[in-house]
């Protein structure tokens, strides 16, 4: 019995409930409770991360209903880290929104309350070892974030919230059908006395489940959890939700929430790889389509947040490509890119949030020359752009390069060729965007407005993320033992024929 698994999601959940009860009238109390909750959660996650992702251990609770291995430990660590940074960032960012009259002060309790519940659901998703509860919690992450996506409650925000809610809820209902089919197929093969709801038990009998049930459930799971992960063609909610949510929430959605969808796919779909090669081929094809559509859509964007949202679609394509390659290096590369993307995309969103905070603009043609006025933000964005563009010595390069090699080694050189082409386009787009926003001359209206650097509570977190992106880029060996443990954990749950 490892009680810390329980505390991991219980602490933010309790903090969220307390904020709903006590924080309605006091903004400061809401902020304090949220900060306290995220700090304690982060400390618990660090402990779990050490025990699982670093030492390779497996933690269990309540007769293995909750179970954490290196992969879940790594994702939980990422969620908790970004949760902490986003909550600290939220304090000045949302105070400014209140001062500007964008949102009333009394709604801050709602913001921080849902923020903590959202955090709790994402952390809980990494701990459950029960296929139906996994579905329940994944749907919970959507439900907890709908109000946050529509938080500004203007026409665009409500439209985004509606699309987000309906698309993800319908998508996830497909996943429920998939989970039920999987459970029903597995329960016939599992001996009496053993719980057929457990993911680890289902994985053991994956090869014995009838092929028709496997194929139908895999399609349903890909539609359901793929919608959550922003997989094309089920990605249409993503740009709207990422663009219209308050920036700290955009960072959480893009940085970690879509990864929870990938995590669910890893736990439910990859278990069939050794038995049905069509499953990995399907994932690979979806990955390649996602990557190409994402980068084409990136080129058409003028809104900074929508641009980054489509960049997330492209990155999810890379992650799915790695998973679809189905070899050790491919899955290692996918997990590596998942880690890197969480860091660099959260950094990019927080930097763009800083630009919006200072200039009140987010359309690229309205911006320019900000590097002079916002040096910390500029450095953070440069690091994010170079990492996302896949430039050597930045973390994005290492994981993308790993995926390229994995593609060739797995016998899919065409996938590598497409991925390289997408990466080259990515670099060009990011260089162009960075120049337009941070270099050259600032427009007169921005100069006249007296733009200046954001408070330390905002750039502090950005610099931590920038440092991590650089550290992994220059010295990738620092994370390779962790990634090895996480990849081994994936293979440990897959039964071999």
């Amino acid at each position, binding site marked *: 019995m490892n009680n810390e698994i329980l505390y991991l999601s219980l602490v933010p959940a309790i903090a969220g409930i307390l904020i709903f009860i006590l924080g309605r009238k006091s903004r400061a109390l809401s902020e304090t409770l949220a900060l306290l909750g995220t700090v304690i959660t982060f400390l618990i996650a660090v402990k779990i991360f050490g025990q699982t992702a670093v030492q390779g251990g497996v933690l269990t609770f309540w007769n293995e209903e909750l179970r954490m291995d290196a992969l879940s430990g790594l994702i939980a660590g990422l969620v908790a880290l970004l949760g902490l940074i986003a909550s600290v960032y939220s304090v000045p960012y949302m105070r400014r929104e209140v001062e500007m009259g964008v949102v009333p002060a009394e709604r801050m309790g709602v913001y921080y309350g849902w923020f903590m519940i959202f955090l709790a659901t994402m952390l809980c998703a990494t701990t459950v070892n029960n296929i139906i509860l996994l579905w329940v919690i994944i749907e919970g992450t959507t439900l907890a974030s709908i109000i946050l996506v529509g938080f500004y409650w203007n026409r665009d925000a409500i439209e985004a919230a509606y*699309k987000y809610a309906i698309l993800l809820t*319908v998508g996830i209902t497909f996943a429920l059908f998939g989970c039920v089919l999987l459970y029903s197929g597995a329960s016939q093969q599992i001996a009496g006395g053993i719980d057929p709801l457990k993911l680890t038990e289902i994985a053991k009998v994956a090869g014995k489940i009838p092929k028709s049930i496997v194929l139908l459930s895999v399609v349903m799971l890909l539609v359901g959890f793929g919608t959550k992960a922003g997989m094309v063609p089920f990605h249409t909610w993503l740009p709207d939700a990422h663009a219209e949510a308050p920036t700290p929430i955009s960072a959480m959605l893009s940085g970690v929430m879509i990864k929870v969808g990938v995590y669910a796919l890893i736990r439910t779909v990859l278990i069939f790889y050794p038995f049905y090669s069509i499953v990995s081929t399907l994932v690979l094809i979806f990955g390649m389509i996602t990557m190409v559509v994402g980068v084409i859509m990136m080129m058409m964007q003028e809104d900074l947040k929508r641009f980054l949202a489509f960049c997330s679609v492209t990155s999810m394509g890379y992650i799915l490509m790695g998973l679809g390659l189905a070899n050790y290096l491919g899955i290692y590369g996918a997990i590596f890119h998942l880690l890197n993307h969480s860091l660099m995309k959260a950094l990019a969103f927080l930097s763009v949030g800083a630009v919006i905070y200072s200039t009140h603009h987010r359309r690229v043609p309205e911006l320019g020359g900000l590097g002079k006025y916002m040096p910390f933000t500029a450095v953070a964005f440069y690091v994010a752009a170079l990492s996302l563009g896949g430039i050597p010595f930045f973390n994005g390069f290492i994981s993308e390069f790993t995926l390229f090699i994995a593609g060739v080694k797995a016998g899919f050189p065409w996938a590598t060729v497409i991925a390289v082409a997408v990466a080259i386009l990515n670099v060009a787009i990011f260089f162009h965007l960075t120049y337009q926003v941070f270099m050259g001359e600032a427009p007169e209206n921005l100069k006249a407005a007296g733009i200046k650097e954001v408070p330390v509570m905002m750039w502090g977190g950005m610099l931590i993320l920038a440092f991590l992106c650089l550290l992994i880029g220059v010295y990738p060996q620092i994370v390779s033992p962790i990634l090895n443990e996480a990849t081994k954990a994936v293979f440990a749950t897959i039964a071999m024929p």
Partner: protein
Amino acid sequence: MQEFAKIISTISLSMIITSYLIIELRNLRYSAYMYMIQAVLMCTLFAIFAIENHGLYYWAMTAFVTKVVIIPWLLLRYIKKTTDREFQPLIGYLGSIFLISAVVVILYRVTHSYIGFVAPSQFATAEPFRTNLAVSLSIFFMGLYCILVRRDAIKTVHGLLILENGVHLSLVTLAPALRETALIGIVTDVVIAVWILLYVIYGIYQKFGSTDTLQLRGLRW
């Protein structure tokens, strides 16, 4: 179960008819009442299946509380706050009925004939479980149809509820031994999803003046 096969078939057919009515009735309040009737039918089905598998009595109770009481109450409350007239759909009565009928007949026939494709065991391929599975898949796709072609946001929620009823109904055949905690988790999610969706739709009504989803075109590309 054989002695109840006729009753089960009749109730299953009634569930398909109520799905038709939920989709086609233009008065949203009547659609909500029809949903309530469908939920009562589903609870009755669970109760009949529970004669052999007593655990299903608990399912019938859970479904009654959530689907007969809470969800219709939420629907009627928000319909009162907005409007009870469905926004003119993209496809008229005749076209819609023809399309749904085609979908239902094809799906029902295919599922009923090739039940082995989805049935996890021999037991599930026998009547009345075979019919149950065919009906649940038909209802699932009727819900999907409603979501895809209806432009009224509240009607879309009705579609989502039909979709979810399809999955819920399939559990009798696919997962009769599912634990209560898992079932409570599923229905709790559904209730919360409906509540939050209706809250957001009320926001749409306030900001846009109607619940027409075709108006939501501000965010494109």
